[in-house]
């Protein structure tokens, strides 16, 4: 438990907790990690976000030590751990399936790591951890007697008990229903705040990633496509893939005139202050940038779909040029809005565009 204080680099920049350099991992013909560089800052909540098979889990398992990279190095707290087994890395991990020891009580589960690492203040530490996850009354239960949410909180307590350098969470909420997931999300945020531990979170759920993280790494094909805080990843995606992956978005192909004007096929014009040269371009439009309007200058469209969501409504629109657009309205849709109805829309502050697609 009482490890020597990690040797930290001169504190001019944010201290780096985990430094991964040039990580490569292949499974047969599949490249799960393609020269990945990643710095995880001390105390941050960093999320690896991507669809299944993007390499996010492999990256985490390499940091954990369950997979050995084919190439590249990993340092934790300035110490090269690439060739160390997981047990020597002083990390914590929470799995999607909870993976509590079924033959041990809650208390024994939480104490396991402390015993394995020869800690002295086991009882006090277990008590503190159960307080942290608000389950002190369940200490004598076995995992099978707990709900999914409770099991996951015990798993959290078990992983945090040894005060790990880094807590890794592998889709920990994916097995829970929506309401419980929301509840545990805010609990995760609280525990992150209270313990100050560095969190490495893996998920395929972009909403969860944006909600929880200090920084998000969007992954595809064994590479990190973009790394940044949730807002910048949402507002300034570096490419079409990231733009499409994070949040709802529509793409409109057209011609940019280099003077703030975007022309759709068929001649309709939209104002879009883009910082790029004239030519064919693919305009990226978030649903909240598409507003219904009565002005005659509005872009004509047909309502294709009215999909009520919680607190808002997502409209599917067809433009005259054949392209599709989504619009988000607050609240329930007006009763007059039905599929097939012609409407006019205004596009607000469209500053995001990519090269015209193939």
């Amino acid at each position: 438990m009482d490890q020597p204080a990690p040797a930290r680099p001169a504190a001019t920049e944010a201290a780096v907790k985990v430094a991964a350099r040039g990580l490569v991992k292949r499974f047969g013909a599949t490249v799960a990690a393609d020269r990945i560089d990643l710095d995880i800052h001390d105390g941050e909540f960093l999320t690896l976000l991507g669809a299944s098979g993007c390499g996010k889990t492999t990256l985490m398992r390499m940091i954990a030590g369950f997979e050995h990279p084919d190439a590249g190095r990993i340092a934790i707290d300035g110490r090269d751990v690439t060739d160390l087994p997981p047990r020597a890395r002083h990390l914590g991990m929470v799995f999607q399936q909870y993976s509590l020891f079924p033959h041990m009580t809650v208390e024994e589960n939480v104490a396991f790591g402390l015993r394995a690492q020869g800690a002295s203040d086991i009882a006090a530490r277990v008590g503190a951890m159960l307080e942290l996850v608000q389950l002190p009354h369940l200490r004598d239960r076995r995992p099978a007697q707990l709900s999914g949410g409770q099991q996951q909180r015990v798993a959290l307590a078990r992983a945090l008990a040894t005060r790990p350098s880094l807590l890794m969470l592998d889709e920990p909420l994916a097995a829970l229903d929506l309401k419980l997931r929301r509840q545990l999300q805010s609990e995760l945020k609280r525990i992150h705040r209270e313990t100050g531990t560095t969190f490495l979170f893996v998920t395929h759920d972009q909403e969860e990633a944006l909600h929880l993280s200090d920084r998000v790494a969007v992954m595809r094909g064994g590479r990190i496509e973009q790394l940044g805080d949730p807002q910048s990843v949402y507002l300034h995606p570096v490419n079409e893939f990231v733009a499409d992956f994070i949040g709802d978005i529509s793409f409109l192909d057209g011609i940019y005139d280099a003077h703030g004007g975007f022309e759709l096929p068929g001649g309709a014009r939209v104002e879009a202050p883009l910082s790029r040269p004239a030519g064919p371009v693919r305009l990226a439009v978030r649903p909240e940038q598409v507003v219904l309007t009565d002005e005659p200058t509005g872009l004509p469209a047909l309502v294709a779909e009215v999909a009520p969501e919680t607190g808002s409504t997502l409209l599917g629109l067809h433009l005259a040029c054949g392209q599709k657009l989504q619009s988000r309205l607050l609240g329930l849709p007006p009763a007059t809005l039905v599929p097939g109805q012609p409407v006019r829309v205004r596009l607000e502050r469209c500053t995001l565009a990519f090269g015209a697609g193939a």
Partner: protein
Amino acid sequence: MTALRRASLPDRATLWLALAPACALVLLAMLVPLAEMAVISFRRESFGQILPGFTLANYASLLGGLASLQLFLHTFAVAAAVTLLCALLGFPLATAIARAPARWRGLLYFMVAAPLLVNTVVRSYGWLLILGRKGLLNSLLQAAGWTGEPLALTGNLTGLVIGGTQVFLPFMVLSLATSLLALDRRLMESAEILGAGPARTFVSVTLPLALPGLIAGSVLVFSLMLGAFVTPLILGGTAVKYLSVAVYTDALVLFNLPRATALSLLLMIAVLAVYALQKRLTRRAEAALA
């Protein structure tokens, strides 16, 4: 057959009808002879002739005599030793099978079970060729100069335990592998990342969770070894006191059927007791998980 095809018959009745031949077989080929054995075990005999009238003398002499007590203890000790060896050898083997890629697992299972395809008599004689005075092992040891005189590896306990272990190891491995396969690998990973070394992970996670398989395998091996006859006869020889061999001697050499049947029934009761014990142990092991 016509009855099975008639849809109007309730499923339950159809099932019983289909089971009837098997039930009849068990009744005629097992329960009836068993009942007759039980009757004989309470009879007297004289020069191979079974006399009328009942007596408890057979059981009294078996349960009261020092020699038969020794016989029981010896048999149980051998069976226990074989079980222990099977567990020690079987655990790594079963672990390897459980960890192997799924496409290799079928082949590994087959390799473990393959010896079961060979008759026990043949296998036990095979061990004679390896362990005998002029067998492979002794030739090698003498050629290497490690022993002058050939070691006595058959016709005694050593041969019996080695042979029994080889004969019954597959049962232990298959039973353990089933248990280990059901184990979530992430539990071991959890233990590892929490700082537990291989030894602690094995003792505090793998072993307790594989306990149902270990118990089932042990009971299987133990009870099969208790009743084993061919291997003790061939590899243990007449020097080794073994229950099944004693039953054979009583029945077919001494023609003392009452004694042989009484001994058989006592052995059967012992095996049933072991099964009952397994039920209790397994229930407790499973209760610990629920």
